[in-house]
């Protein structure tokens, strides 16, 4: 072979190696992303989150996810109805002396972000993932937007510091810390927000 041919073979070999390495990297990143998604799913379907991501005309309460007491209804924008809105009771912060949880902008998630079916069963991982990544349903959030939502949305932050019940006992929290949740979201977003197959 001539020197020129040698260079061409070497270049082709390097090129193929790069492609193979990138493919492996992409595959492992997707696998990492899917693993991270499952961690996120364990948080998103915790009662602190899903109680307001309902498929119903009312919020839910408690770890048993019962219908919200006091005839509370969803109302326009998930804010309740005039004269009986979420802020009739829920303030900007937890009211631990009276057991009422609170955070800025207390409201129900839109019905497009429901993570349960009409029989009160939690949707499977693939369905929640598909909904969350559908920009026609999620307020047009892309991956970085979803990451920002998980990093700083007051109601997301509240889920990890949900305060105390009226009897003084602490509310249960999701299985990950907020830092772990954000880290998992970052991995998932970096992997291109992959969703498991149904």
């Amino acid at each position, binding site marked *: 072979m001539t020197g020129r041919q040698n260079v061409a073979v070497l270049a082709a070999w390097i090129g193929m190696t790069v492609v193979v390495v990138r493919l492996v990297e992409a595959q492992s990143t997707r696998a990492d992303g899917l693993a991270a998604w499952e961690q996120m799913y364990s948080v998103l379907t915790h009662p602190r989150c899903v109680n307001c991501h309902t498929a119903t005309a009312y919020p839910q309460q408690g770890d048993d996810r019962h219908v919200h007491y006091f005839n509370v*209804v969803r109302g326009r924008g998930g804010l309740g109805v*005039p*004269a*009986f809105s979420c802020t009739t009771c829920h303030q900007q*912060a937890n009211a631990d*002396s*009276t057991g009422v949880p609170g955070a800025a902008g207390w409201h129900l998630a839109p019905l497009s972000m429901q993570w349960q079916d009409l029989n009160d069963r939690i949707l499977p991982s693939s369905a929640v993932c598909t909904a969350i990544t559908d920009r026609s349903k999620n307020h047009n959030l892309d991956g970085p937007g979803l990451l920002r939502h998980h990093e700083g949305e007051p109601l997301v932050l509240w889920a990890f510091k949900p305060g105390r019940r009226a009897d003084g006992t602490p509310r249960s929290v999701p299985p990950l810390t907020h830092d772990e949740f954000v880290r998992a979201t970052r991995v998932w977003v970096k992997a291109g927000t992959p969703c498991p197959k149904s």
Partner: protein
Amino acid sequence: MASYVLTINSRQRDVIADPGTPLLWVLREHLKMRGTKYGCGIAACGACTVHVGGVATRSCVLPVSLVGARPIVTIEGMAADRVGRVVQEAWVSGDVVQCGYCQGGQIMTAVTLLKNVSKPTDSQIEQSMGGNICRCGTYVRIRAAIKQAAQQLG
């Protein structure tokens, strides 16, 4: 204990209370304003409803430390409020009250409803008033009085 300056019915009031004290008890015990009633203590009945920053609010579960600078209006302040006065007159003319215990809260909620919806439908009345419980069962007269007030307010 901490000190708070509350604006109640357009008047500044100084209060020294534990930060976790519900506004209801600040009104009733510290300030001797007894129009706002204790019903259930868990926000379930609406008898303790007052307006905080214009929002109908359950004072029995609102710690005084979370009131902030928002103005408070109680049933004692309704006569000085245009909508409040009309609603109270409708209550009297419709002879709504039976025992009366819940009616302060009912009126506070009705006033907020009419300030947000000028001509509420039956369904809107039922949803907005749905958290105010009346053991005497005066609901039908309450609904009629709200409609009468809405008509008078134009």
